[in-house]
């Protein structure tokens, strides 16, 4: 476990391509206000023969102009559109403004859809069936290449692959780039899409709801939880040093106080068992920001509805904070679960830090722990420090501490 050195970093733009719409922080604010889940029967592909049918889909299709996006796959178009929204919100429209910026993309599956289509071409027709177009998309850095091209980003560029916390890792790597003075500002984007073959097969691997054969639903932290329901989306953030943001008089949405990450050793592809947990990361993250548990109003959790995930994460958070505070919340019941949803969590936390809005876990009738406060009733919080916590299959753990914009 480790935390980044102190580096005053701020968030100045949010961009979102989601089932709730395409836009900036107003899309995130309205999804928190409405608290309406986007999870519904999948319409983008047939699911009749599958054991599961629900998902949270992005319905918008014309994300970029035809001529520009002619060769771009859907997942790349989502990333470009989200990054453009974030950049517009951060008021960075001058030509070449983004040349020195860095770019970090976080993704779990990248453009797997193109890879599968490429291989299908071969399986159906041999070498003649292969499409040259598709091949560059078969490596996960293709979205970053296309975003950098579309936005003119020429600084350090990275794609980070990870299940569960790809979004958080992208944010943390962006902060690390700032700390190492490789850039003064970084565009971060978490992106993953729903894809029929993967959707079907993950279900057959019994990692999706209903993994107990019961009813299919997304109920993180509830006793009826029986697996995640998949979603998709792209959420982008503009993250800069405080100095850089102030120099260009940017409107600051939130400050990042501290970031830490590491892993808990566990069995392959599993969430840690309770006996395997250790509690170093959150302690280190709090200490590094000189904060104590009582300073926190809210914590966003990553629990997906997988029972092992939910149980382990609550144990980690309860141990770090004790009984009662902070209020625990999540976006997963609204957005569905995907590997890079973490940037949406950070975007939601940013809106909470500024406007006090937060999602309500209104489905949570039977929490798996009674000694913890969940945000089950609508209400606002006064802007304060927010923890965005992530725990992934395989034991990766992340902690981001976010707060209101610094006072002048």
């Amino acid at each position: 476990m480790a935390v980044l050195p102190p580096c005053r970093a701020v968030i100045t733009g949010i961009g979102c391509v989601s089932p709730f719409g395409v836009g900036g922080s107003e899309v995130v604010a309205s999804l928190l206000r409405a608290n309406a889940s986007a999870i519904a029967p999948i319409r983008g592909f047939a699911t009749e023969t599958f054991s599961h049918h629900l998902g949270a889909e992005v319905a918008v299709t014309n994300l970029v102009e035809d001529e520009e996006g002619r060769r771009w796959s859907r997942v790349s178009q989502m990333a470009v559109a989200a990054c453009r929204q974030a950049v517009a919100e951060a008021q960075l429209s001058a030509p070449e403004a983004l040349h020195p910026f860095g770019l970090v993309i976080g993704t779990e599956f990248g453009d797997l859809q193109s890879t599968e289509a490429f291989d299908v071409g071969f399986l159906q027709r041999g070498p003649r069936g292969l499409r040259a177009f598709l091949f560059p998309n078969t490596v996960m850095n293709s979205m970053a290449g296309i975003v950098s091209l579309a936005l003119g980003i020429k600084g350090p560029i990275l794609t980070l692959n990870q299940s569960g916390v790809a979004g958080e890792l992208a944010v943390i790597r962006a902060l690390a780039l700032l700390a190492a003075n490789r850039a003064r500002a970084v565009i971060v984007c978490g992106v993953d899409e729903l894809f029929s073959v993967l959707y079907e097969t993950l279900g057959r691997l019994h990692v999706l709801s209903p993994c107990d054969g019961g009813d299919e639903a997304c109920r993180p932290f509830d006793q009826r939880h029986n697996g995640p329901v998949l979603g998709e989306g792209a959420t982008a953030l503009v993250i800069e040093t405080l100095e850089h943001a102030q120099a260009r008089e940017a409107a600051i949405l939130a400050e990042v106080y501290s970031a830490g990450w590491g892993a808990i050793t566990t069995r392959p592809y599993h969430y840690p068992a309770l006996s395997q947990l250790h509690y170093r990361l959150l302690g280190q993250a709090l200490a590094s920001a000189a904060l104590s548990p009582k300073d926190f109003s809210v914590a966003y959790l990553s629990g997906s509805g997988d029972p092992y995930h939910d149980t382990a994460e609550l144990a980690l958070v309860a141990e770090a904070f004790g009984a009662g505070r902070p209020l625990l919340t999540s976006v997963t019941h609204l957005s569905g679960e995907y590997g890079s949803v973490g940037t949406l969590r950070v975007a939601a936390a940013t809106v909470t830090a500024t406007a006090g809005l937060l999602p309500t876990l209104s489905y949570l009738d039977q929490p798996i722990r009674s000694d913890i406060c969940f945000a089950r009733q609508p209400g606002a919080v006064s802007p304060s420090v927010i923890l965005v916590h992530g725990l992934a299959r395989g034991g990766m753990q992340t902690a981001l501490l976010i707060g209101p914009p610094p006072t002048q």
Partner: protein
Amino acid sequence: MALDSRIGKLDFDKHYAWIRAMTQEEIIVEVKKMLSQRLRVAPERVAALEADSPLLRGGLGLDSLDCIELLLGLEDEFGLEFKEDAEEGWIEHFSSLERISQLVIHMQGELP
């Protein structure tokens, strides 16, 4: 640029006999379909193309990746075979619909 040094020997079978009989206009129609299906060029832009409209930079804007895809399309649809060691500047053969059809016609004329 002489085409001969770059064009491999044709390998027609009966199934592709009809290609031999195609006129330039018919070839252009097929290539336009490739532009829209393989290269995803918008239908209205394809429809607006004349035989001599520039397809590369300054025109439709096709680049080398597009031209490889078109080349594969020609190999697949017309049964052509291009030598692997194409010279630099090979994409100029794709600079207009007229030039592409000339390439196909030239290879049509290469009877075993």
